[in-house]
């Protein structure tokens, strides 16, 4: 952890033009699940700017290795071995230390290990599809996994999800909470995906596409993809002059 006092300032207002609106009828499930009234603005009180701390002690040795964390001894899942690495920073470019990063994904055939999943691609007996880690003092994280496959899903009659990994990120405040998805460079399905297209800003979409990173590739073992994540920034303590309540 940084040798600095914890930050107690409010977060920058969320730039909602960078995010999908609630109502995106081409992603059909959003139609009945999208609030229709205006949100009530609420600048950060203690309730929003605080958040729990998840210690490194909650993480087990193989939580960030999806190749081994569900596999039978001596076996491993089918698929392309990859390393995913990156940095969690805030909008000021400051590394977010101690962020809880959770990830989940389909297997190499595009099948999730879930009770309600019905796609005909087979389960991989050696792949669970879940992992987590906590960022280091500078916000860096990494994990090993199998590259997920694309899969069809019931929306339009022929909609396919690009290969992707889901991310849940817990930074320093409850208002920083974020769930997103990482896509892979070069996947033609990205630009025809109704869920990707909920994001109105093309540059914002590009920031969710992880490039192949040959420098981080482990020779004769696994290729690497780099995925940086930006959480909301917060005002500098220097600018605060509240006597109390902040």
């Amino acid at each position, binding site marked *: 952890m940084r040798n600095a006092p*914890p*930050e*107690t300032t409010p977060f*920058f207002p*969320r730039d909602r033009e*960078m*995010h*999908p609106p*609630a109502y995106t009828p081409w992603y059909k*499930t959003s*139609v*009945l*699940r*999208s*609030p*229709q009234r205006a*949100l*009530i*603005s*609420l600048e950060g*009180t*203690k*309730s*929003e700017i*605080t*958040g*729990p*701390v998840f210690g490194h002690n*909650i993480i*087990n040795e193989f*939580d960030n290795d999806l190749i081994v964390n569900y596999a039978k001894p001596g076996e491993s899942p089918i698929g392309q071995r990859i390393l995913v690495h990156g940095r969690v920073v805030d*909008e000021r*470019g400051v590394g977010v230390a101690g962020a809880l990063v*959770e990830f*989940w994904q389909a297997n190499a055939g595009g099948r*999730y290990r*879930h009770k*309600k999943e019905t796609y005909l691609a087979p389960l991989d007996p050696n792949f*669970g*599809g*879940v992992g987590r880690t906590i960022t280091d003092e500078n916000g860096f994280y990494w994990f090993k996994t199998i590259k997920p496959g694309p899969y069809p899903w019931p929306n339009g009659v022929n909609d396919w999800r690009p290969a992707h990994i889901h991310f*849940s990120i817990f930074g*320093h*405040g*409850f208002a920083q909470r*974020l*769930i*997103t998805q990482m896509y892979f460079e070069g996947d033609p399905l990205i630009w025809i995906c109704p*869920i*990707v297209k909920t994001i109105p800003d093309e540059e*914002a979409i590009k*920031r*969710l596409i992880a490039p192949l990173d040959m420098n981080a590739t482990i020779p004769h073992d696994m290729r690497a993809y780099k995925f940086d*994540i*930006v*959480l*909301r920034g917060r005002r500098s303590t220097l600018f605060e002059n509240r*006597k*109390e*309540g902040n």
Partner: protein
Amino acid sequence: MVQPLGYLKESASQTAGPYVHIGCTPNFTGIHGVYDHDLGSGSLVNEQTRGERITIRGRVIDGAGTALRDALVEIWQADADGFYNSPSETRGKADPNFFGWARCPGDMETGEFVFETIKPGRVPFRDGRLMAPHVNFWIVARGINLGLNTRMYFSDETQANAEDPILARIEHKVRVPTLVGKRDGDTVTFDIYLQGENETIFFDI
């Protein structure tokens, strides 16, 4: 030309999808052996926790009146004295026996979420006025493109609710009850309506 400000943009949200449980509550969906237990599951309370024990129950309901069976709900709340268990809490030290955060997947049949917790104390607003006791909620699910933030206040706090600076700024008073959990004994019921006549107030926090 001027200097660039140089700020980055927050990463865009994407829906949690139908399988958020795999990532956040794997044991709940039958993936055993990776984590000992699901993070944030179980009671928030132990024998030493200070405060009044309550159970929060509710559902997340869509615009057709159907309870979501694939939502994930997280709560974050102050301890019995109004302190958050967080490094950003500078007014005092929170109860070490109360973490203040939990997550619960909706039941796969009924959609119900349940939290065993305590009633939080009052937390000051930015100007020092006390807010009424409340629990912060964050809701994600398939079909929700960006996580939704709301608060649950308590029906047995009429006076404090009347003084609350957040509730006071809500123009359409008819909507305020959507933020109030209904207390009956030790149980507080809080149904979250995504749409419709009773659409819950959501906050841009």
